[in-house]
């Protein structure tokens, strides 16, 4: 298949989620896995070479075309309000879930020191977190964890990719323009650590 690279590019372009090699192979049946892999590598290299507005990222176990992070401030101006405007409280709660998952509400509230019911519901609605089940303790509380969408939005390959607390601390001293988002994360983690 000579067009394979172009077809894959068109897939990456329209797909709503990151695309795994398996998913691509399930459509391009004649293609070998390594052919697909090579096409993806070639595309990624092309995007790197031309240094345009987008790049190929390996996210959540698959591949996805993403805009280059250096343009995010501009992009925010374009898409503004409806995007991921999370309040500081919501971001803190999300950070706790990300690092402590699977986690129950009382643990989250213990760390934050406030009621989180509304925020937990909102995070669920936005599909940033999900309920894994119930913990078999009195009251059978819900167990929360993050979703694939969480990984995608925060541009993480998998949960292993979450910055360690030390890395976050290092970040803090280094880049001031990142501060708004990360600062609140750091605060959260500091709190989490101290408890």
């Amino acid at each position: 298949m000579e067009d394979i690279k172009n077809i894959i590019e068109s897939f990456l372009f329209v797909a709503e989620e990151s695309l795994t090699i398996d998913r691509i192979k399930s459509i391009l049946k004649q293609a070998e896995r390594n052919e697909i892999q090579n096409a993806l590598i070639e595309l990624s290299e092309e995007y790197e070479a031309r240094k345009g507005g987008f790049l190929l990222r390996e996210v959540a176990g698959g591949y996805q075309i993403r805009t280059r992070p250096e343009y995010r401030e501009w992009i925010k101006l374009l898409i503004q309000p409806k995007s991921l405007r999370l309040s500081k409280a919501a971001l803190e709660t999300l950070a706790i879930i990300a690092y402590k998952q699977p986690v129950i509400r009382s643990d989250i509230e213990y760390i934050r020191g406030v009621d989180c019911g509304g925020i937990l519901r909102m995070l669920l609605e936005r599909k940033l977190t999900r309920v894994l089940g119930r913990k078999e303790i009195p009251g059978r509380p819900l167990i929360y964890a993050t979703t694939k969408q969480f990984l995608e939005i925060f541009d993480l390959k998998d949960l292993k990719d979450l910055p360690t607390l030390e890395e976050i601390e290092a970040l803090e001293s280094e880049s001031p323009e990142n501060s708004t988002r990360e600062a609140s994360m750091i605060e959260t983690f500091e709190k989490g650590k101290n408890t």
Partner: protein
Amino acid sequence: MGETIYKVHIEDIYEGPMDLLLHLIKKYEIDIYDIPIALITEQYLEYIELMKSMNIDFAGDFIVMASTLVQIKSRMLLPALEEENDDEDPRLQIVKPLEEYLRMKSAAEQLTERNLLWEDTFVRNPGQEDHLINGEDEIIKVGLFELIDAFQKILKNISPDSRVDITADSISVKDRIAQIVDVFEASGSITFDELFSKDSDKGEIVVTFLAILEMVKLSLVRVVQNLRSGVIRLFYL
């Protein structure tokens, strides 16, 4: 033979009277700017009759067109009666709409020949609203407590009554780690439950568990849980 039970709707065959007219014009290879109105009217009425006899249901629009045709025909036969419209061909009454209709039909066809969005060409769909979460293969890193929970389940399954005797270690933790590493080297990963399947007594189960804990501590393995199946799997790093 009884009454035919089929009721065909004319819309299944012709869009409307204009389509029928066009069909007749095509069939007789007629120039629309010089329509033999008598022939067309006759043919049109014949089709209407035929449709009626075949019990085809058709809209009143067909009758309206029929009367228009009849009217034109009669005006063609009596040319000099209307002083003011002297030089206007009565057929224009039908030619103009036909022209227009044909133009629109061909325009509609040209539109479909374009590269239609969602048919021939696609755009990115970054909207998150209808984003389906798809967590089938989501895995999470498992912490110490989850491991202990899982361990307790295994203990329950194996021996419902007797207590675990921590002191009984016929095989050392170190040896067990070596054995587990052998398994990993053969298969790359193994589920938590599989690790215990070969152990017969509680002592061995405990040793296996301590071995796993030690390996986690040494970062020899990564323990993950599939969120959907709940299966805990260990990967050798």
